[in-house]
């Protein structure tokens, strides 16, 4: 279980351009939950995801994972937890141009120093699952946007994280490709993974696998957000 307690994030603290992206947010995400954060641009969705995924430290408040306070951990310990616990899928898949698809998917394994063989098989299995088995040796830059996003999803899942954090995963996809990606996300939900997705795409918010939708505005979670 992940819990945010009174989390505030202020950018450019003390400067004229100071901006409060999150304002005393309380949120609990249970194991296996499929949560979608919806709201307009600038409402704090991405900041909330990055704080939740330990990529960004809050200005105040606490972030707990299974009761363990992550806020006070040093970066080294945090990186280890992040690598084991979270998978990230961003708006842009950020594949490394010039590398093959399989090499891109294996990138998260580089700092882990785990035996390469098992992970390579897992990478191939994930690429097969997401319909990219014929693209494993293709260069990243030759993929279509939909294929690139699925390769990004495979990369996010390589180390079998408990939680997948996805930020606007369908933003650059046409409707058919977006539905395809949502179906893949749904298959992860059926495997028991915790999904936290930020999106303003109604297709994502209305997807069948989602069991909670929260609306955000001005750095706050709005009262009366729906649960299913």
């Amino acid at each position, binding site marked *: 279980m992940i819990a945010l307690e009174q989390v*505030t994030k202020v950018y450019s603290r003390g400067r004229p351009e100071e901006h409060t992206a999150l304002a005393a947010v309380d949120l609990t995400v249970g194991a296996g939950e499929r949560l979608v954060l919806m709201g307009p641009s600038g409402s704090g969705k991405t900041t909330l995801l990055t704080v939740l995924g330990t990529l960004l*430290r809050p*200005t*105040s*408040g606490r972030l707990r994972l299974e009761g363990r*306070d992550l806020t*006070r951990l040093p970066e080294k310990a945090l990186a280890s937890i992040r690598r084991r616990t979270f998978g990230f899928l961003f708006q842009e898949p950020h594949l490394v141009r010039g590398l093959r698809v399989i090499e891109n998917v294996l990138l998260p394994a580089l700092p882990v120093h785990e035996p390469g063989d098992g992970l390579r098989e897992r990478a191939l299995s994930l690429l097969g699952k997401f319909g990219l088995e014929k693209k494993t040796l293709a260069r990243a830059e030759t993929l279509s946007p939909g294929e690139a996003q699925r390769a990004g999803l495979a990369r996010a899942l390589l180390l079998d994280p408990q939680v997948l954090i996805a930020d606007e995963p369908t933003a650059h996809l046409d409707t058919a490709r977006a539905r395809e990606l949502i179906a893949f996300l749904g298959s992860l939900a059926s495997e028991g993974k915790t999904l936290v997705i930020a999106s303003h795409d109604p297709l994502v918010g209305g997807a069948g696998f989602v069991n909670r939708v929260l609306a955000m505005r001005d750095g706050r979670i709005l009262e009366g957000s729906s649960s299913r």
Partner: protein
Amino acid sequence: MTLQPSVIALQALSILVLLSLGWGAFWAWRILEGWDPESPSERQLRLEQRAWLVSAVVSRTCLAQGLSLALFLHTADSLHRILPGAMCAAGSLNANAYGYPALLMKAGNGMLCGLWLILNRADRLAESFPLLRSRCRMLLGMLPLAAFEFELQWDYFRNLAADGPVSCCDALFNAEGRSVLAWVASLPVVPLEISFFAAMALTLAAGVHVLLRRQGASLFGWAGLAVFPLTIASLIAFVFPYLYELPTHHCPFCILQREYAYIGYAIYAGLLGGTLAAAGALVLSRCAGLPGLEGIVPRMQARLVAVGLLAYGLLTAIVTYAVLFSNLVLVEG
């Protein structure tokens, strides 16, 4: 003021250590004043991040303090070439009233830094900072000691005069003299040899017991502390004469020179390393009951004991070699 490169390096290092400890002590005071681990406030989060930064900076400072001790010894040794009458660091340090106090302060502060590093390591592993207040208080205490050490070191180098004769080590560590060191140098060899090897064997056995049974770290700690003065006495009374192969030469500083393959550095590293490991194991046993340190203390104690065994093993091996293979015969068989 003698402006040799090593003196300048030493002074610069000491200033850096002092500034860094001063900065750390400032934040230690702020942390002691405002620490509230349950609070989610911005102030508390900033203090937590600052606590990590202080930990990282002061850790390196403490390592620099250890380096500073070795450099001070090396510098004192090299200065004997410009001081008439001096043959090693013993004469250089005796050139004015500040040399030996500066060395003792450096050694003492080095040990304190080592203990701080051990507590810091335990605290970092615990995540919830159970030793933070102790570390902060210790840091506040270390600052004036470091300042005093810097003052002594500064006065030592400032008052070094190359135009007057100084005493050589033979005059200072002569067994015929009336000083405490002379009394130590004149202690009977056979009882001291037996005491040294028996005490070291017991300490090593206590260490092995800790590694095998995961208990008794306090005993190892006390044994290490008890063996320290005995080892100092043994080194001066019989180990150094064996190494010099001169029955009347007891100097603890000539052994740092190239003629003796710098073996003195290994001897002192073994002694100080072992003592620090033993003291660390002892201090940690006082923290064993604190929440968050339950699994950490025994693990760290085992590592410290392993380090202590290596250090004492090295020291004992050198002493044994000196006793067995020296051309000097102090004890008739």
